[in-house]
């Protein structure tokens, strides 16, 4: 096994272990913190794949924005952050079934794949992955339409959030 494979296995175990802890811990803030470490593990996997931009964006957006807001919301909503109720409901068998089916499907698809023992080839020197990504996002031949649609969607969400939070009456009573 190469050093890279060992590092990958350690990161994968760390990510999976954290993910299990997210759903099994009874303390909501702990669950959010375990979610942060899961997302961090995913970022590390991206970094191993030489996708530096995606890895850093994963940390900036998922940990820096989303997870922090999660923790914030959890802290603001409840006094006692321990959940006493049962951790599974009566649909547990459906969840197990779906996850087993997905896992079985993946195993079936990957059973003849020969890439398990391969190591990633080195990027050629001067390979500008981030430049190529940027061009692909604004090129009419590539992803400009999905990119713009996603931008408009986010803008709409932003305007919607401001509209929901803005109370015109409170604004008037100021005077």
């Amino acid at each position, binding site marked *: 096994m*190469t*050093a890279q494979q060992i590092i990958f296995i350690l990161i994968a175990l760390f990510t999976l272990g954290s993910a299990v802890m997210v759903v099994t811990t009874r*303390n909501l*803030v*702990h669950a959010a*913190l375990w979610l*942060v470490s899961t997302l961090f593990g995913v970022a590390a996997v991206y970094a191993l794949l030489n996708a*530096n*931009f995606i890895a*850093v*964006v994963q*940390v*900036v957006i998922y*940990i*820096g*924005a989303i*997870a*922090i807001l999660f*923790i*914030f919301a959890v*802290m603001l909503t409840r006094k006692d952050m321990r959940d006493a109720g049962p951790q599974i409901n009566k649909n547990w068998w459906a969840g197990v079934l779906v996850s087993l089916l997905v896992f079985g499907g993946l195993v079936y698809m990957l059973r003849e794949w020969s890439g398990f023992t391969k190591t990633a080839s080195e990027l050629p020197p001067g390979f*500008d*992955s*981030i430049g190529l990504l940027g061009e692909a996002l604004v090129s009419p031949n590539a992803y400009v339409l999905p990119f713009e649609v996603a931008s408009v969607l986010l803008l709409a969400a932003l305007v919607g959030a401001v509209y929901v939070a803005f109370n015109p009456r409170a604004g008037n009573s100021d*005077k």
Partner: protein
Amino acid sequence: MSFWNDPLKVAADWLEGVFTGWGMNADAAHVLVAFLGVFLLIAILMVIDIFLVWVERKVVARFQDRLGPNRVGPFGLIQPFADIIKLIIKEDTTPGNADKVVYNLAPILSMMSVLILWAVVPLAPVMLGTDLNVGALFLIAAGAIGTLSIIMAGWASNNKFALIGGFRQVAVMVSFEIPMLTVLMIPVIFAESMNMNAIIAAQSTWYFLISPLGALIFLVAAIAELGRAPFDLAEGESELVSGFNIEYSGMKFGMFYAGELLHAFTFGGFWAILFFGGYRFLGLEQVSPFLAILILIIKAMLGYWVIMWVKYTMMRIRIDQMLAFNWKFLTPLAFALLLVTALMNALLASAPAWLYTLGMILANIVTGWIAIEIARSATRSEREHIEGGKKPAEAHH
């Protein structure tokens, strides 16, 4: 290639040779050498950090017309070691009902979020942790971990002042990340790369000269990110006793404190890298990598000094003032400046260097001037509005 031209690579190759000579796998030797390199960098940073305590105390004393530490050793240089001994032998308290694991993890994460930044700092053209092609974004990503550590400390302490401090700090950091990220794009536009080393290599003229307003916004956002005055609401002593670190004692408090100092020094370094040419100074960086490191450290110290100057001169502002300042002034200004810079950069792409610099400076001055005029008229109408509502009789005086 001799040791004096590329010390890191020569030392790493030599060490790898030694390890493989002992019969170690080449891959394992490579990982071990990389690990030792990280260890060495962190060790050096921690030693610098010890002296930063002395620098900070000496400089604040000067700003406050005092002498500062001057009893232990020459110029009080041994004082930080006395401080460390005190911190280590102090009782290590944990509040009752505190979340122990999170409580103990927070100071470590706080220190880590600072140390991790040095992975992308180019100390010299050939000496850098990793040549990451998204170095500018990495800065923001590491800041996210710092935010997390503070909210963890605030929550796990089981103390309402600590929690309020944590909340405030998150509000500051989440808000000021936006102008910082926007302004970070300005050196990226000039250098056409997010790689820190490429940004330095492209700075034949300092970006401070091309985009003074951008450098200023970066400094303001950096000070907010550091949680230093005038944005030190998270530890507002007059309201929150000590803020998010109220329950920490001994070395755990020391970690927050030392982390903050190193963070300020680090942001001084990033300010130097992004806007003041990093390790470049009159071609001296070509002479020796060690000279380049010295130049970078001097520039980082100057940046750190400016941050201290602001901290010890300005008073703390209220949280609503801070949020209004960020969302109504700094963020729109950063967006406008980014648009103007990108536009001017495209328009002046083929212009001679002097015209390019002049055009950029003028664009910056005009943008800043318009922003200040808008802010002034807004404040004036706001003031008239308040004074007119409260005491109509005195409005004419």
